[in-house]
């Protein structure tokens, strides 16, 4: 689906729109108190049905991450970034550590060896950024 501005076709589009906005808020691209793009702007950007875009925005609004100001639009709620970061931290194990451990087990890499690999990779990164 090349025309979808990066969305994929296997997940409900409103979920992806909500995820994109949440990521932008968590990464600071959309600051607290800032206006989020309107439904029609999102629809035009992602080339999706406006109703789908609205559904995505509403996911975050129902969650209290966005707040509606009547007649003006949706704005990032106070505390939204912290909440999203806390959630991502909570998901870190499930999303990254568990798969890492599964693959390591399949390859016969034990925990000590894994620690060493992670440390080495960490050092390389720090070295590269110096």
């Amino acid at each position, binding site marked *: 689906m090349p025309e979808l501005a990066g969305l994929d076709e296997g997940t409900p*589009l409103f979920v992806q729109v909500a995820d994109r906005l949440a990521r932008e808020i968590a990464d600071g691209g959309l600051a607290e108190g800032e206006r989020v793009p309107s439904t*029609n702007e999102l629809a035009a950007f992602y*080339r999706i*049905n406006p109703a*789908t875009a609205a559904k995505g925005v509403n996911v975050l609004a129902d969650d209290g991450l966005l707040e509606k100001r009547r007649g003006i639009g949706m704005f990032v709620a106070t505390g939204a970034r912290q909440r999203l970061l806390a959630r991502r931290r909570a998901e870190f194990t499930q999303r990254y550590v568990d798969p890492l451990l599964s693959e390591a087990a399949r390859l016969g890499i034990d925990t000590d060896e894994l620690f060493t690999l992670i440390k080495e990779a960490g050092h390389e990164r720090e070295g590269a950024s110096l």
Partner: protein
Amino acid sequence: MTPAISCAGLTRRYRDHTALDDINVAISGGTITGLLGRNGAGKTTLLRIMAGQEFPTAGSVRVLGAPPAENEAVLRRLVFVREDQAYPDLKVGQALRAASWFYPNWDRALASALLDDFGLRAHKAVKKLSRGQRSALGITIGLAARAEVTLFDEPYAGLDAVARQVFYDRLLADFAEFPRTVLLSTHLIDEAAAMFEGVIVLDRGRVVLDAAADDLRGAATRVSGPCLAVEALAAGRPVWERRRLGSQASIVMVGPLSADDREQARSSGLDLTPLSLQQIVVQASTGVLAPADEASSETERTSA
């Protein structure tokens, strides 16, 4: 809310075949719906009946609350753009002017913007247009009419990918500003899928799928990996397709996956790929789509 278009028991028979067989659908106002299916599935016949250009053999159709055939009050609020639409011997500008007299919500500015987008010139004779340019003219009329019910039947014969993107972008933008009921039949599902709020899939004259587009995305998953692990995950669930190569298997499993399913898949080294809307429509229109409780018959189609 009363649907903008509804069909009840709609059937259309020709001498030797049944084009539409007991169609029951209700399309809500203010939505864009995709009408999908293979050639000969009945899409054009259904749209023609909705546009009042053909009569059903049995059953009924209501558009904006009334039967559309020979009903000018409805027809002025409805635009139907056909594949390879024929036009009388006119210039492009005259064709647009004629349309502007007929459709009460006609938007001249939008019509001329679309002419520019498509590179159509008003003084050119319609019969000298290429196939793609004729399609562009049809699309221009279909959008500029701003009709409450807008029916597009494969409207882009001969249009290249760039021009089709112009159509999609213009449709979405104008729809956002002036919501209306749009029904679009197309083969280019991948391209158009993101515009649809609902999809209706016809196969051999029957509705085989009628659902919200976003409910279908991720509603089925391809599971591949070691045969035993694949079968363990799929045990007791509806499966659309089974393929095997040596110790590897690949199946399409229907239904949402739980976090436990994903964990099980990961720990046993299975790959999970959600099916796209296009892939689901293909499944639906090749007749493999079975309700969950009929899934047990699926194993019979298993090919080793």
